[in-house]
């Protein structure tokens, strides 16, 4: 019996020790890459991908790295975008992070201590300045960009024609926008699809009166006076159903979905959706820069890129990989695949060619849309976010919807977002 007890104790101890290893382990020195005896380094690359097509594109990029540097191999690991950042933070917490890490500008603040500054190692020549600015924080370039996005007003051309309204063009104002939204509201359809998502809502507030929810030194200021005024204006659109109010705080994509469905005649959406919106809508889609408020038309820009994790043991190889992954060859390949508006200026015109080739019937609309992107980028500024931005976004959804339905005042809702967000910013 004593033996049995001893065996049970030993097994128990092994079990506990093993679980301690799995739960608390991490920080392994070889995380994210490995080196073979012949000196070939295999780097892990973590990236989001939603389909087999996207994975195939990324595999192509990985092969480009090895073609340029036969001693570097890239092992691609993917997760769907919605799970990507949950996976990434868990990997960092357990020391399983990849050497090459894909990063979105809005999430950058949460990873500043974990990414190696790239300044001296990866040259920033040839990139649109807005794209590199969005992926740097505290003066350090933490990732190199592969795309660049701005926010635009998408509008229903057919509805504008039917209402006898001039179509929006660069330089149109907030007053023009309000007038159009009111006139387009009829027969149970709304003039504008409202939103509470960060880029969609905050860009329009920025263009309205230069309201900024985050200070230049990345502190929340949701309760600032300009924000209160801008939200009061935005929520005012809900009156008389001019603005279509989201059905619930879980409807992050309400405005743009209502627009494509033909239930709202205008919506703010990202430039990344130009191709899909034009082909999905059963009406002619027009695109314009955001309406200009007192300080002119403005928008936030956002983008994604690739960085190198600080814990990576093969940093030189990782820098080389990032150079290729964001290089001119990769940019040309991704643009030809229609992956998004490229961060490299030289490849930007090719994006227009790709969209026109996809939808030759809408060549004119697409061409004008891409011109709108270029125009909006000229006044685009990066939206720097706090490291608890997920929490802030959640609270924006919950509290702004109360303002839109009239259950709360802009000042109270913004104070709640500010108070709850300030704790972990």
């Amino acid at each position, binding site marked *: *019996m004593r033996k*049995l007890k001893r*065996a*049970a104790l030993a*097994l*128990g101890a092994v*079990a*506990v020790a*093993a*679980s*301690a290893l799995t*739960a608390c382990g991490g920080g392994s020195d070889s995380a994210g890459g490995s080196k073979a005896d012949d000196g070939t380094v295999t780097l892990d690359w973590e990236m989001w991908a939603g389909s087999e097509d996207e994975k195939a594109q990324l595999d192509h990029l990985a092969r480009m790295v090895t073609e340029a540097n036969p001693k570097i191999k890239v092992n691609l690991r993917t997760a769907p975008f919605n799970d990507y950042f*949950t996976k990434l*933070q*868990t990997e*960092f*917490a357990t020391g399983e992070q990849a050497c090459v890490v894909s990063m979105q500008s809005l999430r950058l603040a*949460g990873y500043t*201590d*974990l990414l190696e500054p790239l300044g001296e190692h990866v040259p920033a020549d040839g990139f649109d300045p807005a794209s590199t600015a969005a992926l740097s924080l505290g003066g350090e370039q933490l990732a190199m960009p592969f795309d660049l996005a701005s926010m635009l007003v998408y509008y229903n051309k057919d509805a504008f024609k039917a209402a006898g309204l001039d179509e929006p063009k660069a330089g149109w104002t907030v007053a023009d926008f309000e007038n159009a939204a009111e006139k387009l509201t009829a027969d*149970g359809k709304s003039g504008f699809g409202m939103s509470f998502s960060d880029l969609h809502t905050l860009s329009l507030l920025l263009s309205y009166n230069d309201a900024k929810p985050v200070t230049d030194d990345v502190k929340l200021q949701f309760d600032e006076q300009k924000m209160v005024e801008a939200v009061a204006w935005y929520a005012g659109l809900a009156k008389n159903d001019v603005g*279509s*109010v*989201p*059905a*619930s*705080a*879980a*409807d992050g994509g309400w405005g743009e979905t209502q627009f494509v469905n033909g*239930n709202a005649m205008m919506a703010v959406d990202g430039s990344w959706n130009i191709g899909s919106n034009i082909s999905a809508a059963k009406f002619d889609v027009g695109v314009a820069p955001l309406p200009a408020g007192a300080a002119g038309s403005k928008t936030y820009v956002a983008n994604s890129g690739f960085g190198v994790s600080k814990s990576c043991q093969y940093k030189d190889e990782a820098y080389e990989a990032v150079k290729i992954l964001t290089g001119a060859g990769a940019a040309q390949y991704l643009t030809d695949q229609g992956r998004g508006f490229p961060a490299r200026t030289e490849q930007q015109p090719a994006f227009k060619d790709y969209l026109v080739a996809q939808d030759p019937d809408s060549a004119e609309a697409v061409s004008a849309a891409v011109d709108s992107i270029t125009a909006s980028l000229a006044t685009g500024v990066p939206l720097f976010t706090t490291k*608890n931005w*997920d*929490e802030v976004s*959640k609270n924006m*959804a*919950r*509290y702004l*919807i*109360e303002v*839109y*339905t009239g*259950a*709360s005042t802009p000042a109270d809702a913004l104070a*709640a977002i500010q*108070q*709850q967000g300030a*704790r*972990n910013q």
Partner: protein
Amino acid sequence: MATPSLTTPAPPRPAPRGPAGKRRRKSPGRRAEQWSAFGFAGPSVIGLGLFTLFPVAMAVVMSLFNWPMLGDPTFLGLDNFKYLFGEDPNFGVALRNTFIFTGLYVPLNIIVALALAFWINNSRYAQLWRVLFFIPAITPMVANAVIWKLLLQPDGTFAYYLDSIFGISAPNFLADGRTALLSVVAMSVWQGFGYNLIVFSAAINEMPANVLEAARLDGATGLRKFWSVQLPLMSPAMFFATTMTLITSMQVFTQPYILTAGGPGNATETLVMNVYQAGFQSRDLGLAASGAWILFAIILLITAGQFLGQKKWVHYDH
């Protein structure tokens, strides 16, 4: 390890119990039995230890720390609990919402399941009804919630029928703080009653015919028969159904997460949502562990109360 098999001789009978047996040396067969018992139980014991007991113990430790997802933990003592009950603007509301949800969902679920179980029992198409009502319970919750979101949105099916039949302009069900939680309850009852309906249907079929016959001869009919005869006969099934439903309703997460994301404001934030947000949005694992422990304690207390209370109303002998 010595494991008895068909090819080895049968082990001798176990030593008799009692004081005399205790003094006796263990036979090799007995020892072999112990080893084989350990061999069979071992994997589950190790699994339980690794994946249940260890995380539970770890959660206790974490609840006493400021344990960020990225970075080093620091000891806090009971500060996480103090924060939840003192400063956290959402935890108290989440607690209240969870109790309101449970208070509405459990009785509604039981009443609907019970009423339909009795109705179905007399129907010619009993099997068909059972299958139909059980479908929501086995359909993925997320899919159900997404469909309900479409039904409940301003231009959705409910709004259309309210307007066309009753001429009532429907509220924005999920965006209005007065109707959001009720909508979550309605969806949950629709999703959940099928399971209890099957349990009650089985209990109704198991009722002893002689007891019902005796009740009939004594003149018991209708409500009197239901209340004094059928319900007591079904009480073990009722106890099982209420206990399990109550535990799952205290842990409600998917329905409000998909339908309302906890909003508007914090009108539909539940305890598990609060824990999820603390852990995966605020990345504060210590705070999440504290919230989870409070939820566990509440469920444990309520369930213990139910087990103590069952002596008064649950009848196992018939």
